[in-house]
């Protein structure tokens, strides 16, 4: 599904969090949102998801600009947000429709791919932070959403698990050609996963740069070309750079 933002902004009680956000994503494109803390990345994702409807501007999903929640959209929140009264398996099947047995077979597949096999019957209070986040990832991926919004999905995980799950995300993407918007603080992650990286800056946040990453997948982690891009991104994130400081 295609996604298009046109002059999107959001103001909370007179205080503008983001403004003038325009970008579009082709079907199956992976877009990274990068920016310092508080510059409005989560706010943009909430607007795209339809959970927040009080934004300005237009967001169109497959040409449809109505402000509503599309059930083909999946959202991995910045926190796990598991339902505490359901165990791991029930949490993962929560968004699935159909026969109980089929749902569980599918869910178990994903529980295994996030490395939680054998923990199906633990309750959220018995999970570590990273385990809970992995359950949340499985819960979102299992529905094979056509648009996938991810808010720092891997930030609570160790380096190795993180890489595994990034590859899992790419697998899901390859199979279902989901359009993905990924918020992250990890530049290497953005370079590894995304077709384009959009960099936000300032308070209120605005788009500073839109960097195309043309390298073919599967990409090597930490190649020379990537290193050059990384330096470029780091520079544009540098808050001391005078260009768009608004204070």
């Amino acid at each position, binding site marked *: 599904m295609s996604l298009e933002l046109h002059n999107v902004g959001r103001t909370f009680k007179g205080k503008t969090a983001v403004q003038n956000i325009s970008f579009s994503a082709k079907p199956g494109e992976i877009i990274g949102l990068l920016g310092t803390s508080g510059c409005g990345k989560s706010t943009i994702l909430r607007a795209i*998801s339809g*959970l927040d409807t009080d934004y300005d501007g237009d967001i169109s999903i497959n040409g449809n600009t109505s402000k509503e929640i599309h059930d083909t*959209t999946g*959202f991995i929140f910045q926190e796990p947000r598991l339902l505490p*009264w359901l165990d791991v398996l029930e949490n993962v099947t929560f*968004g699935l429709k159909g026969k109980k047995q089929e749902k569980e077979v599918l869910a178990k597949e994903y529980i295994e791919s996030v490395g939680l096999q054998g923990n199906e019957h633990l*309750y*959220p209070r018995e999970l570590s932070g990273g385990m809970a986040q992995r359950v949340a990832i499985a819960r979102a991926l299992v529905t094979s959403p056509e648009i996938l919004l991810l808010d720092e999905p891997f930030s609570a995980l160790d380096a190795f698990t993180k890489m595994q799950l990034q590859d899992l995300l790419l697998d899901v993407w390859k199979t279902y050609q989901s359009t993905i918007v990924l918020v992250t603080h990890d530049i290497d992650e953005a370079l590894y996963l995304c077709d384009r990286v959009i960099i936000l800056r300032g308070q209120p946040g605005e788009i500073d740069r839109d960097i195309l990453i043309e390298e073919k997948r599967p990409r090597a982690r930490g190649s020379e070309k990537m290193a050059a891009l990384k330096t470029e991104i780091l520079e544009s994130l540098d808050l001391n750079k005078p260009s768009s400081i608004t204070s």
Partner: protein
Amino acid sequence: MANQESSYAADGVVVPEKSIDRPRAKRNLKGWKPVLLGSIFPIILILVWELLSKMGVFPPYQLPAPSVIFLTIVELAKDGSLWGHIGVTTYRVFAGFVLGTGVAIVLGSLVGFFKNAEQLFDPMIQAFRSIPSLAWVPLFILWMGIGEPSKIAMIAVGVFFPVYLNIVSGILGVDRKIIEVGKMYGLNTFQLITRIILPASMPSFLVGLRSGLGLGWMFVVAAELMGASQGLGFLLVYGQNMAQPETIIASIVLFAIIGKLSDWILKAIETKSLHWQDRLVKS
């Protein structure tokens, strides 16, 4: 888990296995520890009381010995009237509890879910809440006579408020973040209520039930004091009229026992249905 499975033979016959019995025995012992700890003080108190009564420190026409009270209860049990008293009182509390809880669930859910219902009902309910519930007694008697309906209505009024307030605050207190999860999965309003809001407000609802039940026991005393021919409250009045302190205290003790018992049942339900809750465990 694996242990338990291995203890089931292929034909479904349970084969006892030492490795499961041992931890279970240990758990049982653990389960009794709080009971033992909790009974230390009451036992000491009763012993001292008995001793002092025997020594004549307390005059028996004012504070009879525990043994005398115990014998009174045994006596009541023997002539069979005890079960009638307990039965009638428990029935009244139960009926009032069910009635009050039912109305509270309906009104509480409406007020919790719908803004219009909140604006319609809540101010009135809050105003009624500020009336001490016992003030209704004369009116209820006037309307319904001195029989069962007025008693049950009174108990229901007592039960209603804590249950209602807890349901409303439970529903309003559901974390917006998990409601959003439901919305992201395209749940409609009805599904949001049944799959997210109800389970999430369960803890608060159960707290309301327990305090409602406590008030139910309080109100049954009031209801039975104002005129009854049977029931533990009647036994109180009877003991007073007959100048039998042992009957009064026996009735108080019985109130304590069945009140505690009914609370214990609710607590067991609570523990079972809220096992997922992440609560502080004291060491």
